[in-house]
């Protein structure tokens, strides 16, 4: 494969961001094209049908299935209230009456002659989708949702946990190499999205949750600290549904890794701005990376780049695997032939000059392009 390298993550100070906001089922779109929306504006809603709760009438009344159906006082399509009698039988020459009552309100949807069961579908549950970002509705997807567009900064992380949140951004460290510790977090950070440097301690994660901090953006986290914070292990990288107060976004990876300078500089320039963040990550069929979006005053139209950047001499890269993990540099040579590396594998490589002056050869698969 000629281009066997990992396309980098986007760190962009100004771009058009489009977000599809879709319902899980068909429903009603409540905004129109051209409407201005805030992150919490509801754009579409639907009702998810309730589940059917089965009443085993035959067993409850001690009847055969056909007798149970005859004993039912309701029929398919009837609405029933909680406590309403739905089946009644008489025994011992009509002296004793047994009844079954509906334990909940709903609609009769199933009367089974084979089992003597009665199925009551519980009321629907409303579901709403909000705009997630401040912007303008540019498209309506019939009965499904909308596309919201904004101009702003977009930063993609490498991994995250926790879902969509929004709040004001606050940089709590001085440099991208600083670890975000407990003592750096105070009451004033509540409801904010807080930016750290090379890592965050377990104590800081816990304190952030107790302060109601919406999100934490850092370079890295030690694996066991994140597991401890979540309360469970992460087996497969499909996240976003965790039941946690504070969404966590990592820009570099696991361990202690300095946040890339350009990412840190951009976040610092956004200090005080409202941002929308999402920790959802899926590193498999349909890659989803966590993101930080800061809607900004429109400066100049920079259309969102949908192409894939290519690796060339002079391209800024970051090495993403040992022995040079995390190092930044510039491509100096792209040998076309396959080269044997230390492990013995024969692969496509590139030569690069790292920021610390070292000149190294690394597999193309082990670098990412720093995009902007």
């Amino acid at each position: 494969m000629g281009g066997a390298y990992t396309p980098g993550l986007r760190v962009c100070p100004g771009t058009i961001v489009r977000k599809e906001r879709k319902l899980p089922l068909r429903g009603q779109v409540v905004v129109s094209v051209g409407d201005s929306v805030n992150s919490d504006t509801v754009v579409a809603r639907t009702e998810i049908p309730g589940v059917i709760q089965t009443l085993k009438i035959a067993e409850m009344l001690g009847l055969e299935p056909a007798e149970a159906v005859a004993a039912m006082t309701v029929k398919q399509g009837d609405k029933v209230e909680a406590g309403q009698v739905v089946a009644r039988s008489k025994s011992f020459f009509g002296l004793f009456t047994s009844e079954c009552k509906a334990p909940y309100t709903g609609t009769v949807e199933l009367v089974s002659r084979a089992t003597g069961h009665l199925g009551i579908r519980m009321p629907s549950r409303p579901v709403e989708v909000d705009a997630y970002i401040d912007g303008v509705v540019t498209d309506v997807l019939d009965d499904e949702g909308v596309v919201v567009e904004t101009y702003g900064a977009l930063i993609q992380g490498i991994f995250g946990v926790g879902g969509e949140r929004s709040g004001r951004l606050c940089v709590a460290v001085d440099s991208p190499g600083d670890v975000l510790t407990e003592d750096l977090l105070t009451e004033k950070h509540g409801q904010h999205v807080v930016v750290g440097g090379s890592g965050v301690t377990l104590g800081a994660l816990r304190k952030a949750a107790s302060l109601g901090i919406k999100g934490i953006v850092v370079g890295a986290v030690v694996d066991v600290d994140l597991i401890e914070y979540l309360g469970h292990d992460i087996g497969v990288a499909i996240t976003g549904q965790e039941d946690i107060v504070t969404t966590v976004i990592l820009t570099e990876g696991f361990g202690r890794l300095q946040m890339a300078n350009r990412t840190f500089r951009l976040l610092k320039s956004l200090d005080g701005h409202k941002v929308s963040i999402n920790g959802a990550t899926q590193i498999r069929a349909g890659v989803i990376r966590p993101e930080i979006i800061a809607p900004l005053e429109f400066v100049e139209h920079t259309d969102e780049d949908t192409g894939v950047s290519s690796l060339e001499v002079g391209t800024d890269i970051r090495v993403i695997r040992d022995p040079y993990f995390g190092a930044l540099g510039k491509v100096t040579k792209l040998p076309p032939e396959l080269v044997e590396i230390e492990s013995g594998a024969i692969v496509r490589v590139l030569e690069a000059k790292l920021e610390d002056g070292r000149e190294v050869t690394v597999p193309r698969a082990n670098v990412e392009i720093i995009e902007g």
Partner: protein
Amino acid sequence: MVEINTILATDCGSTTTKAILIEKKDGEYRLVVRGEAPTTVEAPFDDVTVGVVNAVREVEELAGRRILDETGRIIVPTASEGVGVDMYLSTSSAGGGLQMTVAGVVRAMSAESAERAALGAGAIIIDVIAVDDGRKDFEKVRRIRDLRPDMILVSGGTDGGTVKHLVELSEMLLSADPKPRLGVGLRLPVIYAGNKDARQPVTEILGDRVDLRIVDNLRPTLDRENLGPAREAIHELFLQHVMQQAPGYAKLSDWVSSGIMSTPNAVGQIIQTVAQQMKINVLAADIGGATTDVFSVFGGVYNRTVSANLGMSYSICNVLAEAGISNISRWIPFEVDEAALRNSLRNKMVRPTTIPQTIRELRIEQAVSREALRLAFEHHKTLARSLKGVQSQRTIGEIMEQMETGHTLVDMLSLDMIVGSGGVLSHAPRRAEAAYMMLDAYQPEGVTMLAVDSIFMMPQLGVLSTILPEAASQVFERDCLIKLGSVIAPVGKAREGEPACTLVIRGETITVPYGEVKLIPMEEGESHEAIVRPSRKLDLGAGKGTELVTQVEGGVVGLVIDCRGRPLELPNDARARMSRLRDWYAAFGLEVE
């Protein structure tokens, strides 16, 4: 039929699309070239054919043959000499593959048979629902609703048996009102393969709500499975429903000369063909980034399992979670800091396409692969088993061994060949590394041939075997299968250092002490009769201490005599363990770090 001389076949994997070109030369089908490109089912492309065209373009360049027309469409049939191909076939596992939920009445009987049917058809099982699975009805309903499978297979009841439970299962589906994963507004395909007496009530309940297909009962009697009709229905629905909804597949379906096959289904096909033609018991594993598939044919019975979350990149942290850090570390021949190891595995998970640059990194990945292969094999053994609930006449031996119905069909002593596939095995920098990984993970017993799929082309050959079995077999034997060599491994334990096994071969006598591995150079294609004598505590299949006369074959690695004992036990003390590992690496001629 028109003579087929040029065949193009692609496999659209979740990350890479691989294309191979096969040509008939001097009456024999051979692999000509192979090309690959990233799969393009995701944004910004959202069209699988873009990746196919890119991979085919690489084939064009390497083979010097024009295959694509000006519009980027594959030219089939051959237009003129050197332009186009006679046949184009494809397999696919892109977009998450075929995801299914199966349901049955009894977990260990009909639900398990349904699971085997679906796995054999190339599906990933996302849940198994049974009347007796211990979950409350509402929990099952919620689960069915949340999972959004591509299709559901319902089974249960022998013909003439229970109807009530099947009606209950159908009511549960009705209650959940499940929606398919792909295609908003479409009805979910449901295959009913249960008691034929329950077809009518099941149709009454579900007929209007889902896309219901009725096929023959997959377990018509307790002692018989009839998985064929259900598997065919799954395959047909996969083509009609899932493939049509996936991005670009309608176009790809139009290009191929025969239906697109799911990748694991195709691999299963080629494994069965090989077992049948060579009359052997085979075990094959395909270890990918996200999943590990295991296939076996024992006594003509085919089984496939998929461990959906055991893999070398996307799922590497699930291997860590399931195996535990100590089980991974036990295969690493040098000291490694536990926290650093955990963080490095996480970093591989978030950047799945990276590769080990140093020997040290390679050894760590190969340690993980041993555990992924082992865990997937354990999973396979639990599902590849005889039918539960069957009253069978048992021999005295079976009664003495308390062998139950439902015992695993995987018998290591009767296993003839293990085929490894997937990046970590097929692309191991040295073939001896692949042999050593398989040896530790599977611990073959007796005499077994180890092999690898050279460049992972079993899927393409699998789909080809359904149309041109002869071509598939020829390419498989000559270009796909790389024999690493026979392994002789006595079962049992003995005292460290005492003679474990004596081998007389090519007029030479070789004795290997217990606890050691010996590699004897023997070229690929070489085959010799060997007299193997295990020590009195060890067994090679003929009984403890009993001599075995057998045929052994060479390979690109050679003949391996593994006298480390079965089951293989590593020293508890870390230093002693690392020292043993270093000895074994040295026996294979491999560096440690």
